[in-house]
């Protein structure tokens, strides 16, 4: 199981428009293509998770995540906000790169935690933040995932 398998170009947005944490979370959810009610429930769950502690892990990276009945398989998305957004991160720095992970409550393949761990590992690679800043297309993002071989 490699991270690249979970991403496609359609779930990568390199120009998030939102100016606040809430707005970019909504934009990220929209990348998953759920119906409106499901999007609303998922937004509430992600907000509640954020209320337990920010998912901004520092170095400009956040990984909002939760389990929810509104998805029937693991879903991920990546978004970039070049100017940064206040995510109440651990290091109090603005977030530029956001990885969204949502999984159903029960997974036969049990991918949620390993994928969450791999994304955290990917995000912490020293060259990754700079390369995420520089990339021009979703395809480059997918290529970086492949290169890192996580």
């Amino acid at each position, binding site marked *: 199981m490699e991270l690249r398998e979970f991403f496609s170009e359609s779930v990568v947005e390199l120009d998030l428009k939102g100016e606040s944490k809430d707005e970019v979370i909504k934009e990220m959810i929209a990348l998953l293509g759920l119906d409106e009610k499901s999007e609303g*429930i998922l937004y509430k769950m992600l907000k509640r998770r954020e209320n337990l502690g920010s998912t901004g892990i520092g170095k400009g990276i956040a990984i909002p995540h*939760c389990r929810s*009945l509104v*998805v029937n398989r693991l879903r991920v998305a990546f978004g970039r906000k070049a100017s940064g957004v206040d995510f109440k991160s651990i290091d109090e720095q603005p977030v530029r790169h956001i990885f969204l992970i949502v999984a159903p409550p029960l997974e036969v393949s049990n991918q949620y935690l390993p994928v969450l761990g791999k994304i955290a590992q990917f995000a912490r690679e020293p060259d990754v933040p700079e390369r995420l800043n520089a990339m021009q297309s979703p395809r480059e993002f997918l290529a970086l995932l492949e290169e890192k071989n996580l």
Partner: protein
Amino acid sequence: MHAQLQILLEIQDLKTQRRELLETPGERDMEEQVFHVSIDDALAKLEEKIREMEDSLSAQVRGRYQRLAGRRGRVVVPVIRGTCYGCFVSVPTSLASDAERNQDLRSCENCGRFLYLID
């Protein structure tokens, strides 16, 4: 979506989050070490929110919810490809293909759990 079903889904998701923190060491470690979450604080907040959401259910639905929670654990389950994911018995075709998906509060005829239709 039926308003009560929406509340039930939210309760179920909150309970899932609580269960993961209580029973899955990997998830607890991840939240503590990567995201610096205080597990005790998180559990207390989740507990409070679950109670608040349970109180917002109608009396009739809350009664069924409490009976199911005591007997079956999971109260709301998805229907995926025509199968109830609580008891893994097929649900009637008319229900599984309902054009007005999740507009009504429906239950599995076999296990009694509330059903959430999902693609």
